[in-house]
């Protein structure tokens, strides 16, 4: 039984690590393909890849009456649809 569990552990390691590598390899391929596809057929004014969560920040701190009013209107507008 002790040997048995080691065997299980080895199997889990080989099979598990294998799956992780294969899965992420496929993801690399899929992502590359997707990017080139999107880049070719749906080009777009590019935005730099920066960390930072615009929606969150604007969501967190509307910085003047105008935005406040808009926010309220939008909420109302969207809320209604719900």
């Amino acid at each position: 039984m002790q040997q048995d569990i080691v065997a299980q552990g080895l199997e889990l390691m080989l099979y598990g690590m294998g799956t992780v590598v294969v899965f992420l390899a496929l993801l690399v391929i899929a992502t590359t393909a997707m990017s080139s596809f999107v880049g070719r057929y749906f080009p777009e004014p590019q935005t730099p890849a920066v960390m930072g969560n615009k929606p969150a920040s604007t969501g967190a701190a509307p910085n003047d009456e105008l935005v406040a009013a808009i926010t309220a209107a939008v909420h109302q507008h969207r809320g209604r649809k719900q």
Partner: protein
Amino acid sequence: MLIIGLMLLFLAIRKGFEPLLLVPIGFGGILANIPGSGMAYSALENAVQGADPAFLLELARVLGVAAAENGKELLVAYAASDAVTHVAAQQLALDAGFSNGMLYSFYSVAIASGIAPLVIFMGVGAMTDFGPLLANPKTLFLGAAAQFGIFATILGAVGLTSVGVMDFSITDAAAIGIIGGADGPTAIYVASMLAPDLLGAIAVAAYSYMALVPMIQPPIMRALTTLEERQIEMVQLRPVSKREKIVFPLVLLILVAMLLPDAAPLLGMFCFGNLMKECGVVDRLSDTAQNALINITTIFLGLSVGSKLVADKFLDVNTLGILGLGIVAFGVGTASGVIIAKLMNRFGSTPINPLIGSAGVSAVPMAARVSNKVGLEANPHNFLLMHAMGPNVAGVIGSAVAAGVMISLVGG
């Protein structure tokens, strides 16, 4: 245990160890260990501990066993009894005026159901920017490599068991290994499915070591790299279009759906959160997912995890084993990430600074910061942060995949 709870609070508040989780966990641990309050127990356990003879007699009748002074025997009989009996016994305790402890209720709703870690993962997804990863998809391999820490640790756990030092089942071993994923919700999700008894220790180890990343990783990184390697400057990342960012979570989701259904809950919610963030048309939902909702869930998740820090489970040689193996997991994961990065640099076309390999363990964004910091030591003009964010978020995906594999292999 009270001491341990206070120690966790001290580490969280004074030393800044992942306070968002360790404050609720530590406090929950204290509450769970208040003798006589039964906050971490079910109505039935509380009723049995109440030990009212009349109730015990009635319970024995329901369980169809001989009357027993000792409540423990009855709980054993309960565990052994069949479905209908379970329901009857539970209802009996409720009718007798006993109720589930607060922490027990939190645990059932938040963790036993598996929902809280998934909701938090959704929120994390809504806070994740895949831009750097999309700009350089090859870094996904670093996220894969670093997961070796998980599986090496499993081997360590079964090894210790086979030589009789510890006593872990294969499911325990898998749950311990996931500490190496350096990803809180993933670790809690896996532990709740594979080894609920070890959940407390595993969560504490995972979050503590994530906080210790700035101490654990640098020596390993320096040991495995030459100064020249650490000085490598990487090419500026290409800009990534909004549309790529919107499509990516769907690509990932479809891949998961086709290949790894057991990872679907974790990665599905992660992709959902990320899609809400990137699609730009549901900002009010995205904001809520990364603020009110994730905070509320974190409070109850933390208290629930704390409810598992009960003496008889936690004060145990196995806990030491878990803590020991956990740090091994981090170390091995870091090393594998760095080594693969070295190879990719050696044999690849574009230069890769091996230091970003260590970020593959995830521990977002701390590990990426560490890569940046160690890089700056070697070359004050070399900013690796953005380059390290790729493997960093890749590590999150990698450990979620590993979680799915283990659940499908040894789970339920």
